[in-house]
């Protein structure tokens, strides 16, 4: 049958992928028989860059690993550095971190819901969801000063407080969002065109989900009850009560439903956190003198388990900083699911894991700052490059 196999290359530039990454699909007719991923197109060398920056500067670099889950990355980074120094963030700061993290989860899940609607060709629903997501974005802007890179975390706490006025605004915004989501749930469950495209598509059973070490909503949609927030609590999650949404079908539809129901759960978490918000300082003053140590920090990012590993050697820069984003963990399982499906289902399944490729790739970076000259023109760059090539 090898004669009838066509290689279809999805990416690095393809409308189904919102970020550049390449998947080589070998198809027979309309069915996929083999998938080879080629990642690294948005590889920015963040891990190497982190070794060349101070701990304080790295906080902002960690924020820029991912635009969607920037708070998850900084929380993870701040926790790792706090562990290295053996300090604890004050309780109010932990609650504030939780609130921002949950707002971010809502915004990320809604973003994803819009994208999955777009993948099945339902642009109207995509517009509705993204319109409602604006409420959360505006809230985040109001609370932190920026829509995407919140810069809310500091080492040893958070940078901004939520006072009564802002808390009221959050509650008001959440009410609107909750009403909208509750309105959409029955619509999604009954709209035939959505069901046709997602039910039974991209099936992953719970045994395989464990075997492929799948994380996040993807694992929970396959009936694996894993959530770092409950199993390995950080921030204020050990003091809050919440359900872990799981479903057993393991297809794209259950991934939609898990994420939609998780947004409702997040709304409840924020309400509870706001009502329990303890008083006190929002950050502890720390001296960034870090003893040689190592730390592992885990956070449940919107896409799943995020793990950071830090090692310090006593200097003001980390000796090694490792980031593993949830998408990379789900990649093996993704390629496995893609084998045997229809070509038309590929975008939906790809979107189903909520891929975030920028998170996944890190590393080399163009860094001219160590040079003496302050401003480089294009001409300087060219000259530099020519000299460099002659030398080597």
């Amino acid at each position: 049958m090898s004669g009838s196999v066509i290689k279809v290359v999805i990416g690095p530039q393809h409308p189904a992928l919102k970020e550049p990454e390449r998947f080589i699909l070998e198809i027979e007719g309309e069915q996929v028989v083999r998938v080879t991923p080629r990642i690294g197109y948005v590889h920015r060398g963040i891990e190497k860059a982190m070794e060349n920056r101070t701990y304080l500067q790295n906080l902002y670099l960690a924020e820029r690993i991912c635009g969607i889950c920037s708070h998850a990355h900084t929380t993870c980074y701040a926790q790792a550095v706090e562990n290295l120094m053996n300090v604890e963030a004050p309780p109010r700061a932990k609650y504030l971190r939780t609130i921002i993290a949950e707002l971010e989860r809502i915004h990320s899940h809604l973003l994803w819901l819009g994208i999955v609607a777009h993948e099945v060709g339902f642009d109207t629903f995509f517009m509705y969801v993204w319109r409602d997501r604006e409420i959360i974005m505006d809230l985040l802007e109001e609370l932190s000063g920026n829509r995407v890179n919140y810069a809310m975390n500091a080492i040893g706490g958070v940078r901004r407080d939520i006072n009564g006025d802002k808390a009221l605004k959050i509650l008001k915004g959440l009410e609107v969002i909750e009403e909208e989501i509750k309105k959409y749930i029955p619509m999604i469950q009954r709209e035939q065109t959505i069901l046709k495209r997602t039910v039974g598509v991209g099936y992953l059973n719970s045994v395989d989900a464990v075997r492929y070490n799948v994380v996040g909503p993807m694992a929970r949609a396959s009936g694996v009850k894993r959530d770092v927030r409950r199993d390995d609590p950080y921030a204020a999650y050990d003091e809050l009560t919440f359900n872990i949404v799981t479903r057993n079908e393991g297809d794209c539809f259950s991934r939609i439903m898990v994420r939609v129901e998780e947004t409702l759960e997040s709304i409840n978490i924020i309400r509870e956190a706001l009502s329990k918000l303890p008083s006190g300082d929002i950050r502890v003053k720390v001296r960034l003198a870090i003893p040689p140590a190592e730390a592992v920090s885990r956070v449940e990012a919107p896409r799943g388990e995020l793990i950071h590993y830090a090692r310090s050697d006593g200097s003001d820069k980390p000796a090694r900083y490792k980031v593993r984003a949830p998408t990379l963990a789900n990649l093996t399982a993704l390629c496995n699911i893609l084998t045997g499906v229809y070509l038309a289902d590929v975008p939906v399944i790809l979107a189903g894991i909520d891929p975030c490729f920028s998170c996944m790739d890190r590393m080399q970076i163009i860094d001219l700052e160590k040079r003496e000259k302050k401003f480089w023109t294009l001409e300087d760059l060219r000259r530099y490059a020519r000299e460099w090539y002659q030398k080597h």
Partner: protein
Amino acid sequence: MLTEEEIITSLKNRFGGKIYNVVIAKDRRVFVEADRSIIREALSYMKNSLGFDHLSTITGLDSGRELELVYHIVRENSLVVSLKTKISKTDPRIDSVSDVYIVAELYEREVYDILGVKFEGHPNLSRLILPEDWPEDLHPLRKDVTLEQITLRIDWSRVEDK
């Protein structure tokens, strides 16, 4: 529910002197060092007998004189054991664990890319994140590789002057 201490005891019982430098940093965070010869065995023992069914990631790092690999494995999504091992810098070789944890295949390719560690028995040890035309012997995360060496890999002479 096994505690941190119980896990270390059972590891020590099984592998004896090849497990050392045990640190319990805080709740649910354990750092253990193991000899490189038993890594594969230790991981498969921990997966099959102690219930560490989740490999979070493999960190590769250059600690100056030698390379280090850190396997972060998780039990019941809560207890993280970081199993460290040292390998020589001149001839970095270690057994692949991709048959124990399937996802290790990807993580090992990443480590191979950035540090040049050869995983023996890996089904497809090829580039994962670096470009295809990247020099074979330039491993960006090694400490002796400077930023200058990995910067500006654009051939400007091919770009026409305007």
